[in-house]
């Protein structure tokens, strides 16, 4: 009978020690021996691959990468200096001035920017179909919910590609793309829809208010012209093969893996190749960034080495392991310049 009493006392003691341990480790959080990164889900597959290779080097712990989205990641990144805050932020767009100011207000005054490469968005179709050349303006006209006709915005009247331009195929407009929750969809909205819309001068004449215009530009039709598929890209490929007239919206990495099945439409006369994207000729592309907190270099072990790994030829080079994962590398000279400034932790100037 006494044993149960002892048991109780022991359990209470253990609980107490856990609580004490919690309190002491709270103080220990002042030091951290593992790099932490947050941010964009588009950059996530690249940063995790670099983190894994970095960890396999054996000198440092493998960094922990969370996928929080670019905005959320930069918010965490800019929250302050110290081990409680992440060292690295992945971003699928350049850091904004407001975010840099937010950072500075919290003491994060020096940030190193790594431009790791590019991501391209393709409008791809079955290899069985004849070649098609598109422009962003055509894409916008094909997919917008409302288009200007005779000085008024009306529900999109275009049913076939040839309704927009007689040179385009006489096929029903059917674009299979990602749902609004996807990052690819955000990029597609910004680069294809918004930019395409800007090239249609009538829109500006019809909608004067800039905000309302932007909203109208990025609203995609819901009458069957744009089909929301799940996030499963394999399914989209099957559908494209079954229906050679349809187009699919993919990230570059997917096209790269499936060049034997799909081809990407020319955009304003430019083919989707790694070279054209890197040279900035292909419109539907965006640079990808990684931001590093300079104040953490030398405090959190391995930051400089991690930057070195991320900028090394074996990672971001033309045959680097990140290109296997679908990254479009920067041109060689740009890479080398970026490498030097990154390793020296040259602070970002906007």
């Amino acid at each position: 009978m006494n044993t149960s009493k002892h048991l109780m006392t022991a359990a209470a003691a253990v609980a107490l020690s856990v609580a004490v341990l919690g309190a002491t480790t709270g103080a220990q959080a002042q030091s951290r021996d593992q790099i932490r990164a947050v941010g964009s889900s588009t950059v996530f597959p690249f940063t995790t691959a670099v983190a894994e290779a970095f960890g396999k080097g054996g000198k440092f712990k493998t960094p922990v990468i969370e996928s929080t989205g670019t905005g959320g990641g930069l918010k965490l990144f800019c929250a302050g200096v110290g081990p409680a805050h992440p060292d690295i932020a992945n971003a699928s767009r350049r850091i904004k001035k407001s975010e840099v100011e937010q950072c500075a207000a919290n003491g994060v005054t020096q940030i190193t920017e790594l431009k790791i490469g590019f991501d391209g968005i393709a409008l791809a179709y079955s290899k069985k179909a004849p070649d098609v050349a598109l422009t962003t303006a055509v894409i916008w006209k094909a997919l917008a919910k409302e288009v200007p006709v005779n000085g008024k915005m009306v529900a999109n009247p275009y049913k076939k590609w040839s309704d927009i331009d007689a040179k385009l195929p006489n096929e029903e407009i059917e674009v299979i793309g990602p749902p609004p929750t996807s990052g690819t969809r955000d990029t597609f909205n910004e680069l294809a829809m918004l930019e395409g819309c800007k090239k249609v001068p009538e829109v500006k004449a019809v909608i004067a208010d800039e905000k309302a215009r932007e909203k109208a530009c990025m609203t995609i039709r819901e009458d069957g012209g744009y089909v929301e598929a799940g996030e499963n890209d394999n399914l989209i490929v099957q559908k494209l093969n079954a229906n050679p007239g349809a187009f699919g919206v993919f990230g570059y990495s997917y096209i790269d893996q499936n060049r034997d099945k799909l081809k990407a439409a020319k955009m304003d006369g430019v083919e989707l190749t790694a070279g054209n994207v890197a040279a900035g000729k292909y419109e539907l592309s965006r640079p990808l960034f990684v931001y590093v907190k300079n104040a953490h270099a030398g405090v959190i072990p391995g930051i400089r080495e991690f930057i070195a790994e991320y900028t090394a030829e074996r990672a971001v080079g033309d045959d680097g392991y990140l290109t296997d994962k679908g990254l479009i590398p920067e041109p060689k000279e740009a890479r080398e310049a970026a490498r030097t400034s990154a390793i020296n932790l040259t602070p970002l100037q906007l």
Partner: protein
Amino acid sequence: MTVTASKSHYQSEEFARRLRGRYAAERNFKIAGIAALALASLMLVVLLTSIVSKGYTAFQQAQVRLEVTLDKAQVEERNYTAILRQALYAQFPQITDRTGKRTLNELLSSGAPYELEALVKQNPAIVGTTQTVWVRVDDEVDQFVKGNFSRSAPESERRLNDAKIAAIDAMVAKGTLVQAFNTTLFSAGDSREAEQAGIWGAIVGSMLTLTVTMLLSVPIGVAAAVYLEEFAPKNKWTDLIEVNINNLAAVPSIIFGLLGLAVFLGFFGLPRSAPLVGGLVMALMTLPVIIISARVALKSVPPSIREAALGIGASPLQTVTHHVLPLAMPGILTGTIIGMARALGETAPLLMIGMVAFIVDIPHGLTDSATVLPVQIYMWADSPERAFTERTSAAIMILLGFLILMNGLAVFLRKKFERRW
């Protein structure tokens, strides 16, 4: 008189009809029960078959045998990739062109050089000699060997081209490419490459998290239950507390995650992704469950036990610790283990405190970054590679195994210590 009267009553047509009706009702009730049970079992069988049939192949992984020459200069340069490639080319002397060689290179796992490096570090004496080693192949080759890629599809629709398939077939025929038990799955942490990914990191993370949860929630929960059931006066305040505890048991788990983010990370400054924080959050979540089940167990101890103890002069504390609590223990343990099993399967609150992350290293302490089994399953399920599909199912099987183990323990403890009155 009465006997004959009742006899005639028992033999009456009316009686026989009612009796038949009652038997029929009983039979129908039994049939309904059996049907419900059969339906439930059928669903369980369907679920398990689907998981097992998809996942059992993950317990094997294709490996290739290579005769590697560990050249001293190359080892010093850490150029293990070149060593492996040379060994692979040696198996295909007819392939000399760049494209052909690249095809061969793609057969090997990108983790193979690290495997070889680990081997050399373990036994530096092998440098300068030729050794037979088994290294893992790329996940797509593995999937092809397992028959998960169709061979009959035209080349343009296949993940592997004809040259690669020819090389694989040649190696399988020679016996240098075979399937072996997938030890990596049980010994490694997460990885972006399916053939190098394992769940050991997640298992350790789950164990650390549950340890913290148990050490906090069991003593606190039982103490709270004992006080409320045995000592507390029955008044407005205890009623209010009881209502709140019942209410907390039904609160969605993500709320506890938000609380953890604000209190443990925000206020106390504990590290993100740490099993310590995960355990604290889970402890808050399981506390109400444990308190409620412990109170039920204490209530089921007959009052006569307490009266007898008090009657022979035991103090209230002695009554509780010597008699009531030991008798209630089986029920308390059952409730605790069921609460722990729920915590083992929980992911939502961990999202808020950074435990849903890509973590390669195996955690060694309560403040190391870690993830847990269900999170690992979720992250693998999200990966596009086919090799992760089978690994997802395999991880589910392992999680189910742990749950069965815990629930089995609960049944065992109850059976062993249960007292019937």
